[in-house]
């Protein structure tokens, strides 16, 4: 069982704040992390490997700048077998269509080295772009079927099908999916930590690099900013309310009376 996990390095958007005066994002000091949903996808792959260490191989791949190597090393430290960084200036500015196209080409390249993949795991969404589109679009480029919003996966005995629990608007659905399949995961908890030994080892591990030149037959009209059907034409920070009426009083009764008065004045009940 050969599993590819697609991972993205993202700023920890739970730590980002908006500068209320300049109306820009304060990114200073915001750590770069492994996208939390991808960490969960990797964890699910690791659990399959725990059950059958000899037969499960996990490859992680990320498209991004050189500094994403740190994150790939963290993936190796928790148990991934090998790691690939897909990096080239030509890939910059790609939207989800172009990103997923490049990933699909890179995956074919990686398969030459690692053998063909039985399953591709993605996070449901990256917590920076937040589109949740790369997984399904990658599946489309690869001609694989997709199972989104997974929270759990188990394999049948002969590894031909997977039982996957999905969390959707209506509740939970268990599906039986034929392998090969692309799965996107939607949880972020219950992760494992690397041992210090493995952390040390991963520092010296090889991160294989894939550049534009490595991707034979790639269609230039489908990559980078130029190859992206969507274009961001404007970005701005959402308005922060500054005129809210917030009651602060030492005496709780007084506070409540004032509060209730405001609500009544506004005819809120």
């Amino acid at each position, binding site marked *: 069982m050969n599993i590819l996990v697609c991972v993205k390095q993202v*700023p920890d*958007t*739970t730590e*980002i*704040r908006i500068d209320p005066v300049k109306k820009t*994002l304060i990114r200073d000091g915001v750590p770069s992390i492994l996208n939390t949903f991808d960490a969960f996808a990797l964890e699910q792959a690791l659990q399959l490997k725990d059950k059958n260490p000899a037969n499960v191989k996990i490859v992680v791949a990320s498209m991004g700048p050189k500094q994403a190597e740190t994150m790939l090393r963290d993936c190796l430290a928790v148990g991934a077998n090998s790691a690939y960084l897909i990096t080239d200036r030509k890939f910059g500015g790609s939207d*989800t*269509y172009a990103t997923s196209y490049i990933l699909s080409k890179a995956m074919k390249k990686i398969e030459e080295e690692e053998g063909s993949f039985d399953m591709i795991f993605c996070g449901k969404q990256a*917590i*920076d*772009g*937040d*589109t*949740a*589109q*790369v*997984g*399904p679009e990658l*599946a*489309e*480029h690869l001609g694989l*079927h*997709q*199972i*989104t919003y997974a929270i759990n996966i188990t394999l049948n005995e002969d590894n031909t099908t997977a*039982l996957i629990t999905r969390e959707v*608007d*209506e*509740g*939970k*659905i*268990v*599906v*039986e999916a034929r392998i090969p399949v692309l799965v996107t995961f939607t949880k972020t908890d219950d992760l494992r930590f690397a041992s210090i030994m493995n952390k040390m080892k991963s520092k010296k591990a090889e991160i294989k690099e894939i550049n534009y030149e490595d991707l034979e037959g790639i269609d230039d009209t489908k990559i980078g900013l130029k190859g992206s*059907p*969507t*274009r961001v*034409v*404007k970005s*701005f*920070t*959402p308005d*922060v*309310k500054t005129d*809210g*009426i*917030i*009651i*602060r009083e030492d005496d*709780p009764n007084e*506070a*409540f009376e004032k*509060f*209730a008065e*405001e*609500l*009544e004045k*506004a005819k*809120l*009940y």
Partner: protein
Amino acid sequence: MFENKNFWVYIETKEDGSAKNGGLELLGQAREMVDQVDEEVIALIIGNNVDKAVEQVKKYGATSAIAVTGDVYSEYNTDVYANAVVENVKEYQPNVILISATSLGRDLGPRVAGRLATGLTADCTSLGFEVDKKEVQWTRPAFGGNLMATIICADHRPQMGTVRPGVFERKEYEISPNFEVITKDIDFPQEKILSRIVEVIVDEDADNVDLEGAEIIVSGGRGLGKPENFKLIEELAEVLGGTVGSSRAAVDAGWISHAHQVGQTGKTVGPKLYIACGISGQIQHLAGMSGSDVIIAINKDENAPIFTVADYGIVGDLFTVVPKLTERIKKKKNL
């Protein structure tokens, strides 16, 4: 220039064949844009039982409908549904496709956009329209809600976007005199269906809790301390005729079911009134509720970020404020 014409709205249906609100909301929004260029709003409905939905789309702004029916559509499968959408798009060449950003919509949308090699803007919260170019300006939150981006799809058609349910209101229109339903029978070979549903664990609350359609929501968070205290929230919601919501922390703690969760990984809501009790207001929570008309925050920490979006707030202990407020409203309403 493009030949592509008309706005399509994908209509998702419920178990009983009626349309979900998200799609109906988008019909009205599409109508506003379309009326400026004299094109049509076409509802695309896929399912094995679509009659109810057809009646609804007629009322809420569609000028015509395409219905794809057949047994193969009795349960949602990405490949089966994507094929049906793509076949129709190829035949009729729409200019725009709007899809409600439900879990189904966000599964289907990228699959279709990928196959059509076109752009898809995710999870939009407002839409603009440039009449000359017939180009939609899609605005959406990114970075966990910290940044808004306006996106266009200039050189590819159809232009596609998923739009958060609840950000627009349904609007009734006079029934279009030329309204017609084109019925399509598009087959999909059984052997190409690669996954099937083996079990559905319905969240009992999922059907009963309609946060997206609620006009008043009272939400509780970790500040409640224990599950029993949700009673306070329920009581306040009851006197206001509102629905109970929650933060993810309360859901993760097992105090209340996921159906109640508001936020980035829960529901996006847009009620007239949202009351947050013991919720800190992390960006992922705000992402789901900052579009509410009026927000009231009750929190004992005056630095809680929830106060940055609140219209009214009180720094205080929810265990005194909430019951008092419930009593006050009861009295006022003579309950």
